[in-house]
């Protein structure tokens, strides 16, 4: 048996070769605080040559994470999120609409450490970032969550998504 309660019941053991599986529709919480499980990406624009991506961290039930979370965000040319974009947008790549904070720019206009907006600000832990590019370059928005760690990749942004 690879999953069992130790005698006395205070310790649950997932032994070597055992699995603790968080399937879609399940939630892992620490101290009653759901951990980010995945993310959703939405696209919009407010001006010419601009695209705004809003990233929402979601728990396993698909509900928005309301805690403040730091994570990596980057633009990639590949659908699996490997690497950063080869091209460079002509304009700024920055936080949009005041939603979130860039903690560190890893690669100018391409990769960042970001923090979502706090729950007290009423936007359910979103990060919004904007790309301004007269070339309207295509890219995949990507993030890596601390739990799980694997890249979560949004739908490709294409020319028609820009204003």
């Amino acid at each position, binding site marked *: 048996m690879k999953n069992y309660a130790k005698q006395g019941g205070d310790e649950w053991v997932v032994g070597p070769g055992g699995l*603790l599986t968080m399937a879609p529709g399940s939630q*892992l919480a620490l101290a009653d605080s759901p951990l980010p499980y995945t993310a959703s990406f939405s696209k919009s624009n407010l001006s010419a040559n601009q695209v705004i991506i809003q990233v929402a961290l979601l728990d396993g039930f698909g509900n928005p994470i309301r805690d403040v979370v730091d994570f990596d965000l980057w633009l990639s040319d590949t659908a699996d999120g490997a690497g950063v974009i080869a091209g460079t947008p002509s304009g700024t790549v920055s936080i949009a609409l005041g939603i979130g904070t860039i903690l560190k720019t*890893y690669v100018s206009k391409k990769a960042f450490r970001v923090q979502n907006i706090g729950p007290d600000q009423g936007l359910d832990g979103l990060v919004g970032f904007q790309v301004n590019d007269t070339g309207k370059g295509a890219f995949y928005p990507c993030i890596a969550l601390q739990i799980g760690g694997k890249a979560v990749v949004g739908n490709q942004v294409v020319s028609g998504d820009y204003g």
Partner: protein
Amino acid sequence: MVATVKNQREQGADKWSIAAGGKLRLDGDLVINGVNVPRSASFTPAANGSNVCEVLIALKDSLGVAVAGVFALDVYLSDDPAGAGLTATTASGAVTAATSGGTELNAMVAKKAFRVLTKADGTYKLSITDSAKTAFVVCAQLPSFGKVNASAALVTGNYG
């Protein structure tokens, strides 16, 4: 006096609770959204060119099986076998991602500490050029569990 149960399936069975004082011991794997969360990293050094050592870092599950996927992690050089602290030595040449070895997002400390992305196969290859062929310990802090994995110290023969 009735003992408090600290690990239990709650009524309806949709929730497993670990109360204060309880413990979840994970010697196996945690699977989130169909992905095994990396539990460890292996380090494979190889000589490549004069004074160059390339260290292949591969993410593994609890059984030592490779975990595929693009992951963000911290990679750094230490002098300590357990990975405590950064190396006091600065390599004479470049320390960076090897060709087609993954993506360096940021050098947190030049030639010593980096934020990186693995390739889609869950590996990252660090290239170290150092004429002194220093016995660096290559370290990786994995996502989720946070513990540092450290390589054996490099030896002269690991450099070209």
